[in-house]
């Protein structure tokens, strides 16, 4: 589904990604771990098409199509979803209206009519139940005054509504208490299928107890320096990142 080949990217002339290679197939869950500043969030932003980042070299290919020329919204229309580490507060736009606009704009891009209001309401009801979100919450301004846990649950609610092919969860576990973590992980697991894929970016192994990865990659200094199965996450949890750094720097 997703192929990343020798990806180099920089922001404001500072080189951050220095040759990433990654292949994610449909039905798989990949975890990307690594110490602070290793480039995890940059990788997520570059895949999503954030304009501040310049791709200097390499390719990102989604289902055979090179994404280089596509704007962020076009990538979203192709099925890329990014759960933000810090979801942005948008005063004056309700969660419901934001979702309606997002879904109908995506449908428009695919040449489809707006989703009938009845279907939209039904979908909102189902998906909000899945994330244990109170209906009243949906008429509030997007992310404004939400707690950390509410913001992250709202991200996964949006993922559930948009049904992406490739979901990238950037530090979704940060700021979550154990109950919220369970709800979020449970939501992601229910949305997982053989036709979509999930990339979990995390600093800790905690989330991976709930969303079990098929592959774990360690990102360090802009490169994937180690890949393995889910046991690699446990090893990192026990031993920290220092041994990896030593191995690489040696």
């Amino acid at each position: 589904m997703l192929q990343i080949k020798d990806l180099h990217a920089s922001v404001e002339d500072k080189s951050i990604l220095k040759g990433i290679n990654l292949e994610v197939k449909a039905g798989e869950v990949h975890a990307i771990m690594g110490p602070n500043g290793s480039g995890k969030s940059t990788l997520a932003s570059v895949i999503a098409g954030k304009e501040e980042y310049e791709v200097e070299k390499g390719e990102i290919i989604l289902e055979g199509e090179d994404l280089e020329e596509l704007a962020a919204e076009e990538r979203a229309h192709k099925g890329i979803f990014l759960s933000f580490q810090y979801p942005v507060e948008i005063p004056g736009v309700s969660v419901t209206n934001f979702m309606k606009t997002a879904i109908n704009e995506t449908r428009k891009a695919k040449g489809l009519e707006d989703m009938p209001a009845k279907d939209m309401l039904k979908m909102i009801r189902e998906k909000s139940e899945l994330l244990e979100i109170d209906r009243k919450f949906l008429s509030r301004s997007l992310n404004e005054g939400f707690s950390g846990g509410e913001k992250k649950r709202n991200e996964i609610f949006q993922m559930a509504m948009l049904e992406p092919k490739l979901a990238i969860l950037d530090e979704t576990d940060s700021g979550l208490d154990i109950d919220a973590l369970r709800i979020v992980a449970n939501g992601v697991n229910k949305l997982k299928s053989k036709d979509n894929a999930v990339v979990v970016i995390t600093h800790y192994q905690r989330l991976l107890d709930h969303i079990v990865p098929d592959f774990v990659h360690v990102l360090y200094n802009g490169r994937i320096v180690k890949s393995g199965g889910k046991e690699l996450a446990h090893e990192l949890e026990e031993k920290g990142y220092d041994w990896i750094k030593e191995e690489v720097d040696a």
Partner: protein
Amino acid sequence: MDLKEKLVTSFLAFENRVDVDSPVHDIRNEALKTFENTGFPSKKEEAWKYTSLNSVLKHDYSVFPKQENALEYKDIKKYFIHDIDTYKIIFIDGKYSSHLSQVTHDGIDVCLMSSALNKDKYKPVIENYFNKIATKDSLASLNTAFSNEGAYIYIPKNKAVEKPIQIIHFSTGNESAVLLQPRNLIVVEENSHVQIIERHQSLTDNPVLTNSVTEIFANKRAIVDYYKVQNDNQNASLIDHTFVEQKEQTNCFVHTFSFGGKLTRNNLNFYQNGEHMDSTMKGITIIGDKQHVDHNTLVHHIEPNCESHQDYKGIFADSSTGVFNGKVIVEKEAQKTNAFQANNNILLSDKAAINTKPQLEIFADDVKCSHGCTIGQLDESALFYMKQRGIPEKEARALLMFAFSNNVLDSVKIPELKQRITKLIANKLGVNIGFDL
């Protein structure tokens, strides 16, 4: 001959059409003298520092329309709020159009200034109210000098007028350039309630200059809800003067929606003569190209225990410019005043500009007064967030701008009007999305 000379000369011709023996004509004469002495305001005057009238005064305006022009309702229906029943006072090139209007004398008077000025039965009201709160500056005086036509609305005690009143001034462009000077008088007696929508609409690109004066009197416990829809053509300019005098326990609201026109100047003055009242002025300005919108407001708190609320939002694209000059005076006797003023702006281009200037003159010591001005850009991180969810750049920007101005729109109490303004905003932002936030 420049415009000032032309106006002064044409006053003689104007006198042939009006009753020169009436007391009102003495007021006109006096006003003409004022205008003759002062002339048009220039940028040297503090109140006009950021708004130059040069570009609108250069045209050779026809001061009196030469011919009667007719319009078919179907051709101009879109400018009406037509999905609900309303009273209508409609003018075409400054002349009353009876076939487009729906006026009444049944319990209330919704009719013409010209008849109110000429008929004996209106004399007491005219004597009590006409030109009592309009300022004596040059442009308001110019209007007073030529005052003869406009809307006359009189609501007696204890009447909640059940349908809104629309005042629309059309200009056909059949004459190359035209100057219009409507004069409105609105008197709302004790315990009564009225909703009014005012619009100026030119139908061609020929230059139009409207110099309008409206006096509104709200007596005890009255509620007046006034909406100004300013979405005129690119060569139409408007200088509006609206004066509101409130008595005790009244509520007056003026909403101003400025999207169109070449140059728009809104002078909006509130005088609070009584206790326990509320004055609200709100506005949304969304302009681009070289458009210019200037809001000049005044709230005069004269007695204790009153409130005023001002909330103006502005979005400026291209080389457009805006002015917000909000003055609040709190007299020594006006203790326990709550006066709030906010002016928030978004500049979408490096060439757009806003001059915002709050002026608070507070002589009482037990008051709550606040003002806040902001000037900013659209939040880039919010735009990326929205785009990541599949909302294209243009729509994402529109949604952010709409959300920015939404709390002003929220206080529009006529649902059909609110819907209409929402559509005008979507058109102005070039998107086709429903903003049912």
